[in-house]
């Protein structure tokens, strides 16, 4: 006997906002996120015969949304490839010998500014938004979902060396942005 059942009539009101919140964290444009949520409901309705009631309808909808989001990234693969970057590309942070560029050297951060308040969080958020789409997606999968790097590589279909180039650059950019906009102000 299945433990869970589906109640499609209540989905939009009950789960719409939660699913949208989940999608918005992973795809930057709200309209795209909303369409992915709509797709999720449509896919769910179309495949409701496959639902075995082994997981709650909420978790089932999340699974569908997650695979919709990953599909969205895979479809954009060509554009994302240039965002991933490669080793040969000109380096923004280091010279050819791998030393820090003079103007990119990390500076000491004063401890009295190492606090979490609304002002800091809004700057942090702005710096996160400045990252490339794929970098943000990887950070969400890594830090919000707590996924292992190998799983992320598999899900986004990128190589492990691409992953580390991407994570490395994203951290360098984020750190620099926070330094400039918070610690040096």
């Amino acid at each position, binding site marked *: 006997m299945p433990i869970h059942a589906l109640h499609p009539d209540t989905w939009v009101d009950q789960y719409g906002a939660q699913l949208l919140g989940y999608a918005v964290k992973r795809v930057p444009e709200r309209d795209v996120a909303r369409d992915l949520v709509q797709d999720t409901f449509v896919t769910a*309705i179309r495949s409701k015969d496959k639902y075995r009631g082994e997981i709650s309808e909420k978790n089932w909808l999340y699974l569908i949304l997650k695979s919709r989001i990953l599909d969205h990234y895979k479809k954009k693969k060509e554009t994302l490839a240039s965002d991933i970057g490669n080793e040969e590309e000109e380096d923004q942070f280091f010279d050819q010998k791998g030393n820090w560029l003079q103007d990119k050297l990390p500076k000491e951060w004063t401890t009295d500014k190492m606090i979490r308040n609304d002002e800091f969080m809004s700057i942090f958020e702005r710096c996160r938004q400045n990252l490339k789409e794929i970098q943000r997606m990887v950070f969400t999968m890594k*830090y919000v979902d707590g996924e292992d790097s190998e799983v992320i590589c598999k899900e986004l279909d990128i190589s492990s060396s691409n992953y580390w180039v991407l994570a490395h650059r994203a951290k360098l950019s984020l750190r620099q942005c926070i330094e400039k906009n918070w610690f040096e102000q």
Partner: protein
Amino acid sequence: MMTCKEATEASVRKSQGKVSFRERFDLALHFMACKYCRLFAKQQAWIDQFLSNGSDVKDQLTDEEKSSIKTKINDPQTI
């Protein structure tokens, strides 16, 4: 000796639990000589705690969007 570029990448991998014993050793050696990479590692660790909070996007569907989605999923052509 690791370069700063290699050291910061190793530092990112270390924060995700993906460094070998050898790299860990090389990284420690680099840190002894390089205050900038030490700063990078320390500041990165501080930044990471905010990344795991996720962004506080509170988003709601507008009534219009809700009814448009409802119409769509109740459309016999959809099903």
